[in-house]
Structures are given as C-alpha cells and as structure tokens.
C-alpha cells in the first residue's frame, strides 16, 4: 500500500510535469531604440487594464517611494494592480511573474532583483503574449525581445554625474572612499562603472578604498568606521556612496571619528531621498544625484499604450537632477519620500 501511494505520487508528478514553454511565433514587439525623455501624455482615460507588478522588496526609502507611486497611480487611473513583494529574492519574483501569467494579466512590470536568470520566465510571458515592462533596473539577456520596454534611470549616467560633480567640486583632486551597493545588482555595477568613467580623466582623483555596504545604513556605517581607521581612510578627502542610506550611515561614522562630514570629507551619493536633502541642509552631505522613484505614471502610460496596441519606446529614462547646497532648496519641500 505504501508502494501504491508512492507510485501514485510519482505518477501524479509525471502528470503535472511541466513542459517547457511552447514556442509561439508572436510578432516581435516594436522597438524604438532612441532614448526618449518621458512626457506623461495626459491622454484620455484608457480602458481598464490589469497590471502585475513584482517589486524587489522594501529595502530602502527609495523603494518605499517607488512602491507607493505605483500603487497610487493604479488607484488614480482605476486600473487593477496585482502587487507582489519578492523580499529580495529572485525566486519569489519569478514565482510572482509566473502567477501573473497564469492569472492572465494584461501587462507585467517588475523591478529585477538581479540582472541575470530571467530568460526562461520572460519567454513564458512572451509565449503568453503578455508585454513586459522593466522598472528601474535592467536585465542582462541575449534576447532583447524578451521585454518590451524599460522605464527607469540610467544608473551609469548617475555615476557619471556624481563623478563629474565631485571633479568640479574638488578641482580634480581627491582621494575617494567608495561604498558600493549590493554586489551584483545593476545599480551597484553601473554606478561604479559610470563614476569610474567620469574620474578617469582626472589623474589626481583616485578611489583608495572600496567595499560593499549592501545599500543599508547599518552596513554603510560599519564599513565607514573601518575605513576611517586605515591609512588610506584617514587621508581620504571624499566619499562616494551608491545610495543615500549608506551615505547617511557613513556620516554618523565620520562624526564619531571627530571629523566634519561635508567639509573634511566631501560626500556625494545617489538617490535623492528626503533624508539626503535634510543632510544637505545641515551641511553634512554635499551632493545627491537624483534617481527618480516615481515610476508609477510612466509605467502606466506605457501599459495603456501597449494594451491599446500602440508602439512604445524601448527605453524611457526618467528626468533627474543633481542637487547640492545651491539648489536643494527648490525641491526639499516637495519631497514626499
């Protein structure tokens, strides 16, 4: 009898087994390769659509603002939103996307946790003729037709802007500490590369120490503490943090070391969240390169167009600024996140 149950199990598993996604010859989605600055077209209310959004998690203030923007926009436009928080795990995100496909949503959007490993599940979406919008992070794939559009920031450009700003501020002379983001994530990779590009022209700008701070305040603080107790760290004149949270953590460490953040060490970071503006106001942070989390409107713009059968641009970058003590006051009061 035991054997019978085992056999039943095996048989049912075989019965359930999964075929690989059937290859369909869906027409390739429209490709508009020219980067376009978004202009949320206040078009007439589109038909009600269902969008499945697989979020990374809730790891930072930036992410929180991102989530809220998407949720608010869905409500505002009267669309149905299926939202899933992957708790920073790719496998959870893949499960969510598969579930969206099974539920037959009109459009899938997601912010990929990591860059690789999406081909199989996106092929399934493609086979089911569901367009996919990447939000805020890109993926690394051989087959660019696996996703329809990308909405978000140009991380490499952010890195470049941070580098440029720092070069101007320090007249091309700085020994720099770098706090990297989560190893392997697109923003960490790209912001590092862009920054390196920008300072490559300045022979007297050198990154003297670089470690991961995992995008969190706690790690940013701990790593900075350790940096400051090394010969390189003591001589450092600038800090580049891949996000504001790490910079805020690092500011605490610098203060504890008896130095003045913003003066003894010039600090530039990326994201542009409210706490960063407050820090600029206090003179502890010098510059934050904005990375706009308010992706709800552009995502739904694209989704509406896709459902209506219109062509959409492949890449849509958000409009973003660079803020330092000269211009932070323009936006600080409007920042909700």
């Amino acid at each position: 009898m035991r054997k019978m149950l085992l056999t039943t199990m095996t048989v049912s598993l075989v019965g359930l087994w999964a075929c690989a996604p059937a290859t369909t010859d869906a027409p390739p989605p429209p490709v508009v390769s020219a980067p376009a600055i978004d202009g949320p077209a206040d078009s007439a209310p589109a038909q009600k659509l269902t969008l499945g959004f697989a979020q990374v998690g809730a790891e930072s203030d930036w992410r929180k603002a991102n989530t809220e923007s998407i949720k608010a926009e869905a409500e505002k436009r009267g669309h149905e939103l299926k939202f899933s928080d992957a708790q920073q795990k790719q496998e959870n995100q893949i499960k969510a996307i598969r579930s969206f496909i099974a539920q037959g949503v009109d459009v899938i959007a997601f912010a990929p946790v990591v860059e690789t490993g999406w081909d199989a599940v996106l092929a399934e979406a493609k086979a089911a003729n569901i367009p996919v919008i990447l939000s805020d992070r890109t993926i690394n794939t051989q087959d660019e037709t696996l996703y329809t559009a990308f909405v978000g920031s140009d991380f490499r450009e952010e890195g470049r802007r941070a580098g440029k700003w720092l070069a101007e501020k320090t007249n091309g002379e700085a020994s720099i500490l770098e706090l990297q983001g989560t190893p392997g994530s697109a923003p960490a990779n790209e912001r590092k590369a862009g920054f390196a590009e920008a300072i490559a022209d300045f022979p007297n700008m050198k990154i003297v120490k670089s470690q991961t701070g995992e995008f969190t305040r706690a790690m940013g603080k701990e790593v900075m503490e350790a940096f400051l107790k090394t010969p390189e760290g003591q001589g450092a004149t600038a800090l580049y943090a891949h996000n504001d949270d790490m910079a805020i953590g690092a500011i605490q460490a610098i203060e504890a070391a008896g130095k003045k953040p913003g003066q003894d060490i010039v600090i530039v970071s990326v994201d542009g969240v409210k706490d960063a503006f407050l820090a600029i106001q206090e003179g502890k942070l010098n510059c934050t390169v904005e990375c706009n989390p308010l992706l709800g409107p552009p995502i739904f713009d694209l989704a509406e167009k896709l459902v209506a059968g219109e062509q959409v641009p492949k890449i849509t970058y958000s409009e973003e600024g660079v803020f330092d003590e000269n211009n932070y006051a323009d936006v600080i009061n409007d920042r909700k996140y």
Partner: protein
Amino acid sequence: MASLGRIVSSRHFWPLLVFVLTLLLLRHLSTDFFSISDGRVYGSLVDVFVRGSQVMLLALGMTLVIATGGIDLSVGAVMAISGAMSAWLLTAHEASAGVAIAGGLGVGAVCGLWNGALVAWFGLQPIIATLILMTAGRGIAQLITDGTIITFHHAAFEALGKGYALGVPISVWLVLGMLLVIGAVVDWTNLRLSIESIGSNATASRVAGVPVARVRLLVYVVSGLCAGLAGLINAANIAAADANNAGLYLELDAILAVVIGGAALSGGRFSLTGALVGALVVQGLTTTILTSDVSVHATRVVKAVVVVLVCLLQSPAFRARLQRMIRRRP
C-alpha cells in the same frame, strides 16, 4: 608546567587567545586603534565592542538556552520584531522613548515566551519550535512596519545605539548591564544549578525536583528579552526599523559565539563571559577584515574555519586522536 597545562586546557584560553591575536592584527592594520578624544573612547577597538554589542546580547541569552540543551533560531527575527515595534510606537503613536523601549522589550519577551511554551509545554524540539518564529518573525515585523522601513528621529531613543555615557557607548553599557544582571540572577539563585543540571541530564533533573519546564520557559524568555534589546540597539543605531535586514543571520553568529566561548551544543556547563568573548572573536574578525584590504567575503571563510576548529578542539574523540599522535612522536 602543570599550571600552564591548566591554563591551556581552560575553556576560556583558546577563545581569548584568538581574540587577542585578532586584536593584535587589528592594531597593526588600524591607524586609530584606541584613543580618547573629547572624553569619549574612540578607535577600532571600540568599534569591535559597539558593533559586537548586538551579537553579545544575543549570545548572553543564547548561552542560557544552549546550556539547557536547546537552541534559539528565532533571535534574529525577534530583533526585527522588537525594532519594528518600537519604531512603530515612536512614529505612529509619537510615544516617548521609555514607552518605545518597553514596547520593544515586551514584544521580545512575548516572543521568548512563545518559544518557551512550545518547548517546555508542548515538548517540541527547540530547533523546530524556534524555526517557526524564525520563519514567521520577519513576516510579523513587516506586518508592523507595513512592509516598509520606518525611519524616525528621536534623539533619546537613538541614544541607545549612538549615545555615550561616561565616555563609553551606551550599547556597551547595555551589554555590561545585561551581563551583570543575568550573571547575578543566575549565580545568586538556584538558576545556574538548575540550568546546568537540565542540560546535563534533564530526566534526572526532573526526578530530583528541578522545575524543568519552568526553567526552560525562563531561558527562552531571557533569550527573547536579549534579542529585543539587541533589536532596539539595531534600530536606534540607524534610526530606522528595517524588518528585512535587522539581525539577519545574527542567530547563527550568536550560536557561533556561544560555541566559540566553550559551551557544548548538547547543554550543561555554561559561561556568560565565555559567550561574550566568543561574540567578540566573531566581531573582531569582521572588523579586522573590513579594515584590511581583504574582501569582506573572506569573513565567511574565516568563520567557517573557526567553527570547525573550535568544534574539533572541544571534541573528546579529536583530542584523543591528537594525543595519540603527539605521544607517538617522542
């Protein structure tokens, strides 16, 4: 010679030796090992203690749990819950620091009570009983924070993580206070005897009248309290409650600390200071690697080697084999 032998075979010798060696290396690498500026202690040495304070607190509770032959996998999750609770009280209810601290500690104790009840009253294996809260705990914490990171600005509360008293970081005082309180309670009552006897032979302890269930319940509550306090320090340190990352994998570090500190995972004799030294070894390694140019990932490899070495050194079978090998050579 005999006394040297006794020192070497003492349970604190090896962890202390490793800690001292780590500190020497750190001192060599660090340009600012220890100093006093503005009446405050400062330097890499201080960092080790401050950063290690959370694991030290966890290790204090974990020592008692392990001494009864149990284990508490949920402490990392409990840290997240207590941090979330106090941040929620601070922001949503604009509570005072005192209320927030009490709330965080209270919720930690309740978590401990839950674990203890499952172990002591329902007779579940500790590893499973606490795995339940380990799994569900971060979910509960996110329920409190509504899935976001709650940031707050509250100087009095933040002092728990960043403040100084008499020139020494408050978090270090908290560890010291906890050590003294637990140490005093354990040694001035029958608790140490009861805990050690349960860990050594629970059946015989019951026959001898030791209140086995009550002691087990108590150690899990203490562990929950310690985790709660560690969670508060964690939240105060970054002025935010991060349900996802607060105390992530710290339960493993705490268990590691206790074992490095010389306790057997099977229960029995325990030493609170040993556990603290164990925690400091773990943190000392991390800080040293962060200070050096070695990739931070190497920390894990070093930890792996330390775990296995410490376990081997404690293993009677390994010691016997080692002695045979030494004796064979003249």
